[in-house]
């Protein structure tokens, strides 16, 4: 388990004191894929680089498997780092080494014998699907392939924890998808804990179990990915979600709604099996309101259906209110949209 307590990082510059991370607390359980999302400059890169002490914290503690990294001597820290893999946005492979030699590099550092190094490196190259590229140099590989090498290299010393610093941010959508699938696969196979930072909500949606939204060095919202998608609280989170799930009204409908001055406009978000129940026809049958579906969208977050529906409810004010409370009592997330 990873436990971060009161973590702070301040930079002292001529322009003054910059607080990159501010008394941040975080817990990540074993085997979890935990995503940290934030806009650029939010401090997420500083945060992940402190998790293996590439960046020294100003204050606070970082407990990885009950060891406080900040207490370690430099020798012990180097040993602890061997059990924390890291992958990077720009891959950071050694250009002078082949794929095989790059993957065996961390084993060389750990002092593993040559025979064992080659055996282990070959296994990992197989795992990431690059068996036919073992003798190539990084310059001969595509971005996605380079990141596969990066992942194989990060796994060389059988780490418990993998840190991913914007690992898919410089990849095209197709490579991003395949790298995320690979991360999900190695988590299953190796029972690894993964902490990743990203500025793309798509990454969070595709593979994370839990997510923390970070802004100006503080966590402003965190929870399971489904909960955050279903009930985002802050404007920033909503903005990130709207980049991958479009739950805002298209302009054409906004125009129509404004012209017509309808009854009550509501946005319903529903998760899981609730997507299968016929709520709309229930409304119409039991509360004598007309439900006009203006906009709808069903997506999937890690296999769980997730939908948004924007309804125009017309009828007596009382009936409309009753129908809204009916939907809420069924556990749906209902939001009345006063301003479109």
């Amino acid at each position, binding site marked *: 388990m990873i436990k971060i307590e009161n973590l702070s990082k301040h930079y002292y510059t001529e322009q003054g004191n910059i607080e990159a991370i501010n008394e941040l607390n975080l817990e990540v359980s074993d085997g979890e894929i935990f995503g940290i999302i934030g806009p650029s400059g939010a401090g997420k890169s500083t945060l992940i680089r402190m998790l*293996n002490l*590439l960046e020294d914290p100003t204050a606070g503690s970082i407990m990885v498997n009950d060891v406080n990294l900040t207490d370690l001597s430099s020798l012990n*820290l*180097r*040993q*602890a*780092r*061997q059990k*924390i893999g*890291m992958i*990077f946005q*720009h891959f*950071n*492979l*050694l*250009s*002078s*080494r082949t794929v095989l030699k790059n993957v065996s*590099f*961390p084993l*060389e*550092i*750990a002092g593993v014998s040559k025979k064992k190094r080659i055996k282990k490196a070959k296994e990992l190259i197989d795992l990431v699907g690059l068996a036919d590229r073992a003798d190539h*140099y*990084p*310059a001969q590989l595509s971005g996605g392939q380079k990141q596969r090498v990066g992942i194989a*290299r990060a796994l060389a*010393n059988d780490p418990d924890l993998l*840190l991913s610093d914007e690992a898919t941010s410089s990849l095209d959508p197709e490579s991003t998808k395949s790298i995320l699938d690979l991360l999900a696969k190695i988590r299953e196979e190796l029972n690894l804990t993964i902490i990743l930072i990203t500025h793309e909500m798509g990454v969070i949606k595709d593979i994370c179990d839990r997510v923390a939204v970070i802004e100006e060095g503080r966590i402003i919202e965190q929870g399971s990915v489904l909960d955050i998608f279903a009930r985002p609280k802050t404007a920033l989170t909503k903005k990130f979600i709207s980049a991958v799930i479009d739950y805002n009204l298209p302009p054409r409908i906004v125009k129509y709604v404004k012209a017509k001055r309808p009854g009550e406009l509501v946005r319903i978000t529903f998760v899981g099996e609730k997507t299968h129940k016929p709520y709309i026809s229930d409304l119409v049958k039991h509360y004598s309101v007309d439900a006009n579906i203006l906009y709808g969208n069903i997506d999937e977050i890690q296999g769980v259906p997730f939908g948004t529906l924007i309804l125009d409810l017309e009828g007596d004010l009382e009936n409309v209110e009753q129908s809204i409370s009916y939907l809420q009592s069924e556990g749906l997330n209902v939001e009345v949209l006063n301003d479109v």
Partner: protein
Amino acid sequence: MFDLISELARYNDLMISGTLETLYMVAMSLLFAIILGIPLGVFTTITREDHILPNRFVNFILDGIINIGRSIPFIILMVAVIPFTRMIVGTSIGTNAAVVPLSLAAIPFMGRVTDNAILEIQDGVIESAQSMGASPTQIVFKVLLPEALPAIILGLTLTSISLVSYSAMAGAVGGGGLGDIAIRYGYQRFQLLIMLETIVILVLMVQILQHSGNWIANKFDHR
């Protein structure tokens, strides 16, 4: 035409020994540049702020040594270090004596070349090695030197070419080699042919050095 060739042939022995002397001076001082200049460059880089072993004091001293060494014109350096040369070689005349000032010029030059070559390596590559738990020594030998190798080889080529021209200067003050021949026969005795022949040999030498340097650097460059 045959006159020309037979005229030149009279000086064959002289030319061969002059060429060998020049090659000897260049090779010896290049050897010292490798043994002392590359470590000087490595220590200068790694003690920089934000590098793997920051140390402001050591960096200031090493960087100062490189700058001072590089700022003294060779002809002055050669004369200024005569007492030091005598102390080491026992004489201030001859090819061995010339190796001392040549090495003193080549070491800081190679130091700067190495420093620049290592600085070209992206921070992220060094960081990734740190994230794997590499020690500073491991980073130097497994990351910095191998990654900078093509640039260091090109730097050695550059150094060796500078040394060819410096060695000609050393010849003028009794260091031997092709420079010595050009001055004594070509300049002082007005033997234009000898002068031209030394120039041709020097040009060929530089061409061969540059091309082989490029070729070797290319062999190691997988970027």
